[in-house]
């Protein structure tokens, strides 16, 4: 599958494996509907794009992120449909891709199990709810966490069409885009996304997202007025 994905995703761009793309995840896939993955490529200068993919998922790409004014970092949770490599691919300005990742052993069915909110039947009551917070880090960057309520339907569950968040952008007070991403239904139900965008304590951030039915989602928050987070996270 890797060769197929590599041809489709990267075309003629040069691709090489590079351990500086740190793809981090837990030692066990406790929940195949929601498996946390963090890609940290901050050790590589000039990253223009970060892609998160699971080779053997029926929806291989989870996130395609462009950190325009943001650090090369993204964390989220994905569905796993079987044992699969999970990879982070980062692109440099010259077009080259650097890739890393690892195998994850998982029980099957993360993409074909109905979302919890579909089973409960309350997904529509919470659609549009966004929780979030932003914390200052060193070097004028802020850690931004966003949790959306969304069923993220894959289309693989009986009689429920594909329905997922498909785009997200983070802007500063002046309307400048700090980062934007394409999102696929391989991202777990109730998407949780962590980014590191440019921003100092007190700076205002706005979030705009859209789902595949054209519904818009908006949020606003300010970077916490506190000293940089300890531990260099």
């Amino acid at each position, binding site marked *: 599958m890797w060769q197929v994905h590599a041809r489709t995703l990267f075309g003629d761009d040069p691709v090489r494996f590079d351990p500086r793309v740190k793809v981090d995840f837990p030692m066990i896939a406790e929940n195949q509907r929601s498996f946390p993955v963090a890609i940290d490529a901050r050790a590589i200068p000039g990253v223009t794009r970060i892609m998160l993919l699971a080779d053997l998922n029926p929806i291989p790409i989870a996130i395609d992120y462009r950190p325009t004014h943001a650090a090369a970092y993204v964390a989220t949770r994905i569905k796993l449909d079987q044992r699969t490599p999970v990879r982070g691919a980062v692109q440099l300005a010259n077009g080259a891709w650097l890739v890393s990742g690892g195998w994850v052993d998982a029980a099957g069915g993360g993409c074909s199990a109905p979302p919890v909110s579909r089973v409960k039947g309350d997904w529509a009551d919470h659609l549009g*709810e*966004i929780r979030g917070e932003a914390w200052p880090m060193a070097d004028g960057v802020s850690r931004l966490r966003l949790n959306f309520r969304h069923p993220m339907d894959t289309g693989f569950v009986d009689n429920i069409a594909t329905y997922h968040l498909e785009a997200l952008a983070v802007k500063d007070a002046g309307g400048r885009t700090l980062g934007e991403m394409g999102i696929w239904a391989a991202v777990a139900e109730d998407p949780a996304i962590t980014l590191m965008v440019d921003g100092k304590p007190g700076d205002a951030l706005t979030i705009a997202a859209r789902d595949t039915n054209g519904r818009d989602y908006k949020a606003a928050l300010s970077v916490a007025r506190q000293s940089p*987070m300890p531990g260099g996270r």
Partner: protein
Amino acid sequence: MILSRRTLIGGMATLIAAPVRAADYAITPQAIGDGLWLVRGADEPIEAGNGGAIANIAIIATPAGTVLWDCGPSVRYARALRQQAEQLTGKPVVRVYVSHLHPDHGMGLAAFDPAIVAALPGTIEALRAEGQGYADGMYRLLGDWMRGTDLMLPGRSISQAEEDFGGRRLTLLALSGHSSADLALLDPQTGLLLGGDLVFHDRAPSTPTADLAQWRASLDRLKALPHKGVVPGHGPFDPGGTAAIAQTRDWIDWLEATLTQAVRDGLDMVEAGEVAIPDRFATMAAARYEVQRSVSHLYPALEAALLPRVDIPD
């Protein structure tokens, strides 16, 4: 990955190799009280190497027959356990208590007549709803160890506070917190308390079905109950009777406080699973493994409770 002819041939050789039959379980009961034996589980995750035999099991000899406290992960385990137990006591098994719904404790019940298998009503209900999912997971992890193990439900619902086996009375406690229904058992003859998975000892507690507030309340009740030694669900026997309960309480308090702080500090789940584990838990097996599982179980609810709403209404 580039498939060379050699890797292809290697792969096919693996496919046509004869399926490996799992080895037999080694059941070695150790006497810990008058007419009471402990069969220790491996202090490890459920994996093919241990056949899923990770839970502690107890055997109690009574004038009316042999009583089993939990019966292990598979029919094969339970049959070996019964043979060992009946050899030890010279009496047939007349009762099997299933402490809670988790498969390492009770999947083996299919080896017994359901009429002698007893569990709390909440456990039977939960097994009816979720047992098949657990069974599927066990087959995936353990393969041949599980052969012939079907999901069965305990035939007796526990509603009484004690049961008398020809003069040896056993006290039954209906608690919860590790799961929605957790049975504990006190044997007044020896003073030994069988805690099930409400109590772990030098093996990190697992939280897939936990309600931490209820768990704390149950630990308080066990602590207050006069008893001597404690048999934890996992980990070594605690002869003093206080250390295992206190350690379990310490762990779940630390876990909840630490994950709460992780959400407040803006950590994602991956990062929360990598938080430092205090030195005082260094004796606990599978600590990092269980922290990462617990992040999966507990983090979304903490985020929903602690992160503020930031959406702008249309």
